[in-house]
């Protein structure tokens, strides 16, 4: 890793008797779009507030370009934040809001004016500078909040659930826009979200957090296809799970026994030995359905009964009853429109190859 933009070292933050952030360490490269993904209460917002300087670590340190932020108050940190509910100043116009940070730094009026107008252009709000925040829509307010932070050219831009208050369609537009702006300005973004799709689409790297700890850091694809733990696998995307025990390891492959099911072939996890309790995680779009029982070249075949068939426009979503405990979801894209559908009550076989599953320790 080259010179890190920002680095957290063993940061601990307690709120009363609960540990909000627990020996947290990660670093974010300069110019990177980094997301912290986790359920509510995982400590991700606290992490952001620690970086912004609104809270102080009980232990550990936060460094920007090698400089400790330990005794630096929020107003002197090279960091700006986009707040979850925007926290726009209601008594100032859009331009007044955006100019605020520049005025605080004593930048000359002419430069403020030109930088504010550049920022307005960047977030596509040119001509709206004289409005008050209350006169803007949610999406527009969001862009003002972004411009207000970006105009200061911070070393790190912090975003707290930046799209959380927007409706679904606007949210998807803004995901793309946010990523485009980030690439344009080349700043380091740290984005906190509980929305996994948001994290996957925008980020260069994602950190998955739970209970104040980072569980896995990696590129979106890595997090999705090679989750390091069951929590990560189940938190990100839909997954089907099969609990069993390793029966044998043969080279890079292993065989897994699960009660009532045929032997399952899978890639062997690192350090796996016979007898180990594991979970096989299967993504719904990696499973194949057929009316024939023959393996047809697949490593694994499991019989099932269709419990539910849901038409989603672009795909069919099937719920398959494997046995009385297991209910799996399979997604089949409606690519050719006329693809034959399975009906509830049909007996089918579910097939997949060994390398299409992930085996994780329980």
């Amino acid at each position, binding site marked *: 890793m080259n010179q890190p933009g920002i680095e957290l070292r063993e940061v601990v933050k307690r709120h009363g008797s609960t540990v909000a952030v627990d020996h947290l360490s990660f670093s974010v490269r300069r110019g990177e779009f980094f997301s912290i993904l986790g359920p509510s209460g995982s400590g991700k917002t606290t992490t952001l507030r620690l970086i912004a300087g609104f809270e102080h670590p009980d232990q550990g340190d936060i460094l920007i370009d090698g400089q400790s932020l330990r005794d630096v108050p929020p107003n002197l940190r090279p960091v700006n934040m986009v707040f979850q509910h925007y926290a726009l100043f*209601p008594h100032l116009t859009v331009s007044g809001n955006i100019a*605020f940070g520049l005025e605080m730094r004593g930048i000359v009026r002419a430069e403020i004016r030109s930088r504010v107008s550049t920022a307005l252009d960047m977030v596509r709000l040119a001509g709206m500078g004289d409005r008050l925040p209350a006169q803007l829509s949610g999406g527009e307010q969001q862009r003002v909040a972004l411009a207000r932070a970006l105009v200061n050219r911070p070393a790190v831009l912090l975003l707290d659930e930046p799209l959380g208050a927007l409706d679904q369609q606007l949210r998807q537009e803004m995901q793309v826009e946010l990523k485009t702006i980030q690439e344009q300005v080349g700043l380091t973004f740290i984005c906190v979200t509980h929305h996994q799709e948001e994290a996957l689409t925008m980020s260069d790297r994602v950190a998955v957090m739970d209970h104040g700890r980072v569980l896995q850091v990696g590129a979106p694809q890595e997090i999705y296809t090679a989750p390091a733990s069951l929590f990560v696998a189940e938190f990100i995307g839909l997954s089907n799970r099969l609990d069993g025990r390793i029966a044998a390891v043969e080279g890079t492959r292993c065989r897994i026994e699960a009660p009532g099911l045929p032997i399952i072939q899978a890639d062997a996890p690192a350090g796996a030995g016979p007898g180990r309790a594991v979970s096989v995680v299967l993504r719904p779009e990696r499973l194949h359905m057929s009316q024939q029982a023959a393996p047809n070249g697949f490593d694994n075949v499991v019989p099932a009964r269709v419990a539910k068939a849901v038409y989603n426009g672009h795909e069919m979503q099937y719920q398959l009853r494997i046995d009385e405990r297991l209910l799996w979801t399979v997604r089949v894209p409606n690519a050719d429109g006329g693809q034959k559908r399975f009906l509830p009550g049909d007996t089918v076989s579910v097939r997949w190859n060994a390398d299409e599953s992930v085996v994780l320790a329980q």
Partner: protein
Amino acid sequence: MKGPAWRRRGLLAASLGNLFFLYLPIAVLIVYSFNAAKLAMTWQGFSLQWYAALARDHALIVACQNSVLIALVSTGVATLLGVSAAIGLERLPWRLRAWLDGALLLPLVIPEIMMGVALLLFFVLIKLPLGLLTVTIGHAAFNLPVVMVIVRARLRKLDPQLEEAARDLGATPWQAFRRVTLPLLMPAIVGAALLAFTVSLDDFVVTFFTAGPGATTLPLKVYSMIKTGISPEINALSAMLVVASMGLVALSLAVQRRRIFTH
């Protein structure tokens, strides 16, 4: 409002009845201040003579000056202390806040006459001669909780993240207060000050106990005039006080109701 017609009419009648009950005496007072008669209770034509008489009454003008001076200074003091207390209290841990809250709001509920007696005893005890100063202190004391309650209501509605946002954008704590919190509190502060000014202008009880010989205010003056018989001059004076007070209270409400900047 929906519902059967008889119900709506009933509500209207009740509201009008209430308004009559509240405002009829005041209306009578104001009407009779324009009465040409020397004796208050018979109508003998329209006249402004009693208002003219007021303007020639030197003692009355002095009382008026005292009232305005006391109201101005006590309002200033109460506003400054009340706003500071409101902001300070919001930042305390809640247990301490609950205690101080009760203590600071007590003057709103204890009988005014007790407050008057207590202040009188206190001033005597510390040997502060009664006069304009003691009245002003007394008014500031009962106005402080008034200001505090109004300002705190507004403060509660402010998004605490606004101040954080200001800090994040490079403002020192003082700059964040000056540029963000204070402007957003301003309608409440102005409204509270206007109300405090009115309460001070109209106060009788506390003034009565804390005023020395030279510190007669308008309400005290009215009271002493009544003792020598009700003259139409009192009607005129009272009418002016009523109109001024109602105007100030209306202004105070209008300022407070100005668009509240909250999400």
